[in-house]
């Protein structure tokens, strides 16, 4: 599973932002303007970059299956589970009859 370039940038951005945002002493304690700029700037950067990259990832990783195909698969999984459950119930009642 090789990472795409954009995936590498995404990971690096997140780690670097986390480290930079958490540099101790920045902004200094009690500094209102510094704290507001630091916080709002960090938040805007985080939201814009994450959502932009995420949207790009959605375009790169195009869905191969339609929603209907997923639903058909789910229905098949449910059908098998129901059949197994019915078989278990029948085996149970057969045992009880034997007793």
């Amino acid at each position, binding site marked *: *599973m090789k990472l*795409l*370039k*954009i*995936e590498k940038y*995404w*990971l690096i951005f*997140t780690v670097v932002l*986390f480290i930079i*945002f*958490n540099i*101790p*002493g920045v*902004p*200094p*304690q*009690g*500094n*209102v303007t*510094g*704290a*507001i700029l630091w*916080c*709002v700037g*960090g*938040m805007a950067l*985080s*939201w814009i970059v*994450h*959502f932009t*990259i*995420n949207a790009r*990832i*959605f*375009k*790169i*990783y*195009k*869905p*191969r*299956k339609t*929603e209907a195909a*997923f*639903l058909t*698969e*789910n229905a098949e*999984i*449910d*059908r*098998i*589970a*129901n*059949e*197994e*459950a*019915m078989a*278990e*119930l029948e085996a*149970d009642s057969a045992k009880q009859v034997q007793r």
Partner: protein
Amino acid sequence: MLSFSELWITIAAYIALILGIGSFINHQRSKNPGASLFTSKLPWFQNVMTYIASLMSVWLFFAGPAGYYKGGFTYWISEMIWLPVYALLAHFVTNRIWVLSRKRQYITPADTFCDRFQGPGSKLLRAMVAVIMMISAFPYVTSVIAAIAQGGVRVSDGSISYGAIILTIGVAMVLFTTIGGFKSVALTDTIQGILFFIVIWLIAFVALFYMFGGDFFGAVKEVYNTDGGAFFSYPGPYGWESYGYRFGYPFALIVGYSVMLPHVFVRACYSGRDLKTQRKMATWTPAIRFLVWTGCFIVGMVCFAAMPGLDSKASEYVIPYMIEGTIFPVNPIFAHILMVLFFCGACGVGISTADSYLLSAASIVSDDFIHGLLGIKLTRKNSILVGRIVIFIIGMAGVMMAINPPGLIADMIMFSIGITMPLFPVLVLGIWWKKATTIAANTAVIGGMIGIWITYIVLHNGGTYYGALGTAISFILMIVVSLLTYKPEKENNKYHEDMQEGLDEIYIVDPAAR
């Protein structure tokens, strides 16, 4: 403020609603014998809402406003800034597990771990993951029931006893989860999620309107004047938001809260109906969480401006204080309605978390312990029966613990989150690194738990760093021990091939991006 009968009518109506939904879903399931009590495939809106509702817990109406009251603006930002990281986690972690889950029908979080790590010690890993998840369940369930009961006592001015509310709400919650299972929990989560979203914003607007005539900037100015700007700077008005806490708390939220809590893990990784659901989860959950928390922040901030100087315990009840002290003297009928809504919202947000947790805990006992470790194969019918018994036992144990709960609600919830964090490196390295070994996974989990113990017991720093040290130890051990013990023949080499195959089945990757 609410009379004895008003509160009991509220509780009875609420219980009737959730039990009604539980019974309806149970009736539906009886037509479908293969349906599981513990899992289901959900459409995107329901999956997003059950994820959000199971995350929120009573934090939203109690510890949340208190947190913003004490932590201030920088505390709110420390949560908001990292919410979109969920999109990254979804892409790199949860969606990959979801792809395999479709093929292998995972039920509990340990199923993922033990599917990847099938070498010697796999059973030990299942046991440890299951035990950690179970341990995290008790403080969460307990804190939820305790908070609802404390809230009930508070809104009724003590006319109803704490024990009576605990028993009533606790038993109703256990019955509801026992009867309905995952599907009914998801449905009520959706309804309750919408309810508490509306209620928290209603309270925020009402607080702003009644205390500052609807002038948001007037409230901000008042907050600034109250404490000379401490609310808007580090470390916040109560000294909460230290630089260490600014790192430790969001880290716990990203790793533990967003993915690793068992009930959250199941929703993020297993219950999506299709790829669209998984993608909507990645984009919508951060946005909805932002809106919900921001409503909660406005409540905390406005209450800070109007009622400064509350201590830690009292600050968890800023909403009832505000309704009682500010709205009731002006408009008693509206105050009553608001108090009922507050209590219903608190019940909704709390029960939606606790029932999700109960269900996860029951599936862990039924699937991990009875089936996975003891090797007892249960029929579906017996599995549902055992699950129900386990839900009842765990739920009632939570109720008993809630009668004499330890410490603050916030502390209990955060411990639950912290203890699951060291499992994260095991999960991620298991997905992304073929050389990660089962022995390393076991060592990492044990090392991570030692890290938690050191943080909480030796250093007494649990309230600042939570599971950060445990996660770091787990990560290092995972790499070092894997490098020392990797033997391809002893590991599940098919895992990564199957995952790649699954990804190839659902995605077409744009070749230009390679």
